[in-house]
């Protein structure tokens, strides 16, 4: 029993770090534009696929690091371009739902492309680091790496949003888009930059976590869902929330898979989502919305 508990926690936290990173990436885009990028899940999977395709079987640490930067940069540009494309025809992200379809359509296209290139089955990525024992549980090194990445991304994002001009400007968009526009901020450009940042987070996460994520054409949607639930539990738009929400979702997912079987995992997550929204719609760290009248 203790062993099972250890597995649930170690793997749950590792998985949770991935969900936290997805949630962070959701938040960055959401803050600046009010858009939820539904392609995120498949972008993460795409980064994993690139890791599997680019890495030679016995990849060295230095090559791995270089490839990580390459994939990170590729997806930063790709997601920034996706952002620019999504935003271009939009007059208002609250009135029109076209962005919902255009981001989902990109997700469909990525999934379909993976299907054509790779077939319907999951692929695995080579990794330069051997597994380690934590609390007696053999753990793929990727879980440790992705946890470290989470801490790094979180700190970097905090510093960026508070200390740099661009970061402060993006935070200003989150406060009041109209006001930001009126004061002459280059809103579209900042929004595209935040898409790029989210692409960087997803690209590096997908690369680093490649051995432990499911690299298959249809797994994107479940990463979106878990990442979104992590973001909602913490409070949409709140970085601390994303940091805490991911591990909660990860541990819940692992324990439900252990207790009820894998096919009930999403049911448990759905229940968790509904429960959180019913009791505390603003999430753990979120603020209540402002008055309407």
């Amino acid at each position, binding site marked *: 029993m203790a062993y099972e508990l250890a597995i649930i926690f170690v793997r749950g936290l590792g998985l949770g770090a991935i969900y936290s990173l997805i949630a962070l990436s959701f938040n960055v885009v959401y803050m600046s534009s009010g858009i939820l990028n539904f392609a995120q899940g498949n972008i993460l999977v795409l980064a994993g696929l690139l890791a599997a395709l680019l890495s030679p079987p016995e990849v060295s640490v230095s090559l791995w690091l270089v490839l990580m930067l390459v994939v990170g940069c590729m997806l930063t540009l790709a997601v920034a371009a996706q952002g620019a494309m999504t935003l271009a025809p939009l007059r208002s992200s609250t009135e029109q739902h076209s962005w*919902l*379809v*255009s981001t*989902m359509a990109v*997700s*469909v296209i990525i999934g379909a492309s993976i299907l054509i290139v790779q077939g319907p089955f999951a692929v695995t990525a080579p990794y330069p680091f051997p597994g380690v024992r934590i609390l007696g549980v053999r753990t793929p090194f990727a879980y440790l790496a992705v946890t470290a990445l989470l801490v790094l991304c979180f700190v970097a994002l905090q510093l960026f949003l508070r200390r740099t001009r661009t970061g402060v400007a993006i935070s200003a968009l989150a406060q009041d888009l109209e006001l930001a526009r009126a004061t002459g901020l280059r809103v579209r450009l900042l929004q595209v930059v935040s898409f790029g940042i989210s692409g960087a987070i997803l690209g590096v996460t997908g690369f680093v976590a490649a051995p432990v994520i499911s690299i298959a054409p249809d797994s994107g949607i479940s990463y979106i*869902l878990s990442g979104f639930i992590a973001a909602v539990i913490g409070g949409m738009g709140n970085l601390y929330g994303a940091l805490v929400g991911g591990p909660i979702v990860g541990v819940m997912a692992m324990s439900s898979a252990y207790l009820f079987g894998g096919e009930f995992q*999403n049911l448990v997550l759905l229940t968790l989502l509904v429960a959180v*929204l019913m009791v505390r719609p603003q999430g753990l760290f979120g603020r209540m919305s402002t008055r309407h009248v």
Partner: protein
Amino acid sequence: MSNGSLTGGRGASAPVSQSLKDNGGLGWRTLEEPAQLVLAVAVVVACLGLPALAGNVYWLHIAQLCCLYASAAVFQNLLVSDANQISFGQGAVFGVAAYSFGMASGLNGLPLAAGAGLGICAAVLVGLVLAGPSLRVQGYYLGFVTIAAAMVFPEMLMAFNEYTNGIIGIGVDAGALRRPIVGRIDLLTIVVAVTTSAAFLVHRRVRLSRLGRMMVVSGISPEGAASLGFRPGRMRFAAFVIAAFFTGIAGVIYVPVIEFVSPHSFAFEFSAFLFFAMIVGGQGRLIGPLFGVAVLYIVPNVLLVDLAQYRLIVYGFMALGVMLLFPDGIAGSIIRLLTRSSARSANVAVDFHALGAEVEQQLRTSSGGGNGTRAGTQTDAEAPELVRLHNVVRFYGSVAALDDVSLAIRRGGVHGLVGPNGSGKTTLLNAISGFVRPQGGSITVFGRPTAGRTVADVARLGVGRTFQAPRIYDRLTTAENLQLGFDAPARAPGRWSAAFAEANAGWLHREAASLTHGQRRLIELYRVALSDAELLLLDEPAAGLSPDERVVLGRLVRQLCSEGGKTILIVEHDLNLVWAVADRISVLESGRLIADGTPDDIRGNPHIERLFTGSDDEAEVSDAQR
């Protein structure tokens, strides 16, 4: 009433009724909704009829499927575009209906009719379940809850494979429905045609109905809906249940069309497809779902049938391409194009003169929302209290918005409420309407305590209000925006006099989006007057109005009180206006009531003058501040 009362100054010339008439009755030129409806039904009948008559089984099958998808997308449209409830779960609702039918008739041998009935019931049940979270959350939060539900549904079909046949799926024999009954046309084709046509018809009927308007308002502005006495939560339930019922019908008919159900058919992608079809076709447009299904289903699945492996990617690019090129969807862009070329010239002003006379007539004939006799113009010290605040306290953090306020609003007359910014005026209004709960003290409205009553409950007691940002709904026409007053549950359903509707059709049926700010203010005020509320709470009605419009507003407020029998509580920064219209004035400062009396009492109070120095000439003050 004297001539010109209850009327505004703008556009007093009588407009000619034009928009509907010279447009060929149904509005073909700009593809208005009646025209869209006729077109949609014609396309459905043709798509099913031609292959059926020609005996082309393949195309008949495709047409039947597309029609069923389109009718599910119609109710996706109603749910998202009219009721503003983002649901990605409609594919699951459709699938639950189909599967329940399949399990009942295919596995357990129930008669087809009984199985179909069970399927529809199951769909409504799922609709109720999806509606639950909508009471608490909205927008994309609700979207994700429904996404999760749509993902979980096929997983449950697999998990409970002893009841559902799991991945093998269920076959249902519906050969009996495929025998020709009229010429070469079989019963199933007729059922599909009727169902799909009915879907468009029902959507149109809902839009024209009181329920449809209440849904729209509840979706866009729950607080605006509640202030009219509607219950936004119930409207959401209604929207989900209506959508689930009709989606369930489509889901049930799907079974004899395919004669097979499997979990794979109802994966999340199917729910996403229905949503896509609605948006790509043209969100909110009656005919939109037809275009959406045509582009997203027929092109990838039928025209590219030989390139099966590229089906999904083509589908993705079709959706993406349409959204980038036509963010309003196909039907939306077509209609935008048509209206741009034809309607630009017809800039019809609202005839407030006619509207005022009509509202006056309506108020005279209605029984009135108030109980008992209407009072005269003067605030009578003996007149019954409509509102009583008793030591009301409300803090925001450490800031006092209302600090031990006791106040009575008596029947009849205009009661002004003034004070500097942040003095608690709007909070007081919100406390009376029920938007803000007092932390101490009590409020009674029409003799009943507001504690434990919702905003809608308070509104139904006879309290109407306007908002700082006028609640005019661009999705509705000007007529429908006014009609909301008739729709208020506190009054008997009303309707325009035939003469008025006939003479003013030109501007009444315009989309409200083109109204100016001043027109919005007045329309909102007329609406709340029509709702028969006896007590009107006006929150800064003059904000953003021109000096001329303020004069009109002041006259209207006075007339609503003296001729319409309303009691009015007005919060306003324009002291000239307040002094001109109010019979009694209360002054708030930092949440405290510092004066309460007739305008003469207030004017002589030196303590008050200090607060408003220079306010008699606001222009000077603002110039000095610059």
